């Protein structure tokens, strides 16, 4: 086989070639030092460009993205603000006043009519509340917005009888505040990543509706943000073996120092691996949307070396945090509390086959 060109190597690394082509390249690279060097360089370029692109994710403005409505977050209006109930109450009061002042022979009939009207009004309110709750259970406000744009019925007419824009805004603000609180809480433990956590938490809120779960699967309940943001120990339960030994053996002095400072003892479990150096995880199996420890997506902010093998400057907050897109579309910021290596070469797969299974375990954050 001729030497593959750079584009072909990238296609191979991106798993975009036919099986026969991929196998041919694999065999060739194994026996050609020049091409092996090109592959290593291409891996570095892929990792570095991914890291650079991920730097664009921090949006400077204080933007509150659309959020999924949560029933608990939908602010219900006080009874006097509900038109139907208010009208019923007003009618009852005025009727009672009229009855007490006139005390005519037909007063009971009038009072009975008033009561019936009040009940009717309450029923109407209950129906409206039902519509309101149905609306609140929609996956996201944005979907509702798209629907509203589609619908020929004026949106305002609906909004006045359902939860409405005010409730939307309240829900958005509520989620944003909750996200900020959670991020600040994490910040106390983790260090300097509050802004990143806030933006990610907001993105989590925006995506709290299941995003990539199969359409037929039941939607899993979205975990509160406070449960999602925290410290996790990420473990790999398969496909570790010799690579773990390799990772541990090539641990840099800084990683050793960090680990010593962390008080970590040598890992006894054979399932522990480095995640700080994994750029992309794409599980090939079917993720279980109901299981929060199954991940599917991209781990970013985890690249520590460039094409030439030189260490790119990374702050601890970057190398210690990974962002995981959950199977249901939510984004999880996790802090890697056990770092076994920080050299990219330690975890470069010889073949572009992703790990078979990744799990994470929530742990208490070190103080």
């Amino acid at each position, binding site marked *: 086989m001729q030497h593959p*060109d*750079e*584009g*072909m*190597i*990238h*296609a191979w690394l*991106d798993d*975009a070639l036919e099986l026969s082509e991929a196998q041919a390249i694999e065999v060739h690279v194994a026996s050609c030092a020049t091409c092996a060097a090109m592959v290593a360089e*291409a891996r*570095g*370029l*892929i990792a*570095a*460009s*991914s890291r*650079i*692109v*991920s*730097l*664009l*994710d*921090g*949006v400077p*403005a*204080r*933007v509150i*993205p*659309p959020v999924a409505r949560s029933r608990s977050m939908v602010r219900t209006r006080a009874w006097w603000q509900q038109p139907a109930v208010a009208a019923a109450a007003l009618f009852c009061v005025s009727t009672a006043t009229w009855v007490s002042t006139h005390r005519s022979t037909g007063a009971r009939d009038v009072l009975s009519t008033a009561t019936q009207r009040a009940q009717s009004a309450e029923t109407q309110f209950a129906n409206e509340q039902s519509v309101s709750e149905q609306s609140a259970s929609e*996956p*996201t406000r*944005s*979907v509702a917005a*798209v*629907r509203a*744009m*589609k619908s020929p019925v004026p949106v305002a007419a609906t909004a006045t009888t359902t939860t409405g824009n005010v409730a939307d805004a309240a829900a958005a603000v509520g989620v944003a505040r909750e996200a900020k609180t959670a991020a*600040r809480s994490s*910040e106390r433990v983790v260090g*300097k990543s*509050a*802004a990143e956590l806030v933006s990610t938490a907001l*993105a989590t809120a*925006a*995506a709290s*509706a*299941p*995003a*990539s*779960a199969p*359409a037929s699967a039941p939607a899993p309940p979205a975990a509160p943000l406070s449960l999602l943001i925290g410290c996790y120990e990420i473990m790999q339960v398969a496909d570790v073996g010799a690579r773990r030994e390799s990772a541990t053996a090539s641990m840099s002095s800084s990683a050793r120092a960090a680990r010593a400072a962390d008080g970590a003892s040598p890992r006894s479990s054979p399932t522990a691996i480095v995640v700080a150096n994994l750029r992309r995880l*794409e599980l090939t199996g079917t993720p279980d949307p109901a299981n929060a420890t199954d991940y599917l*997506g*991209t781990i970013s902010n985890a690249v520590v070396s*460039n094409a030439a093998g030189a260490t790119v*400057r990374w*702050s601890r907050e970057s190398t210690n945090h990974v962002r995981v*897109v959950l199977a249901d*579309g939510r*984004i999880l910021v996790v802090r890697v509390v056990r770092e076994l290596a920080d050299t990219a070469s330690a975890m470069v797969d010889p073949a572009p086959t992703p790990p078979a299974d990744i799990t994470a375990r929530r742990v208490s954050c070190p103080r």
Partner: protein
Amino acid sequence: MTDEELERLFRLYHLPLVRYLTRRLGDRDWAEEVAQETFLRALRQDVLHSERSWLFAVATNLVRDEARKESHRRTRLQQLTLEAQAEAASDVRERAAGLSLSDEEPSPERARERAMARRAVDALAEKDRLALLMREEGLDYREIAAALDLSVGSVGTTLSRARRRLTETYEAMQADSASHQGDRDAAS
């Protein structure tokens, strides 16, 4: 397209689409707007073949159209100006109240890195940039080719060129920044 179909599309692709657009535009609000418009157009379609590449292609075209509208730019600039003024006023108020905003502000180092990343990405050729951003959102080569009207065989070359240029540009900026910093340190 039915409402159920729309919901399914939305659940699957809203987040990656908005992230792609945010990276492309540098403006979350604008990205949300374009994403909304994209889903609205999807709603008008009876059937979508290769839905992910369709959505990304439509979003990309919408951005292109939007960018041509001078009025939108003016509005955005006005909005940015107002936001900057509001932020400045907010900063003054909070600092006057003895509160620090440093928890939420990116470090100068991080802000500089972000600015360099933006410049490096913007320096790429349009096709290279879009292919790279789409790939980062997980589109495969066929989808990228369909969205950008490329041949599948050329996507690898496009991506390799984009990645190399982006990395080299960014590293050159870093080196330049480091040398300026060194000069400043020496001068002080």
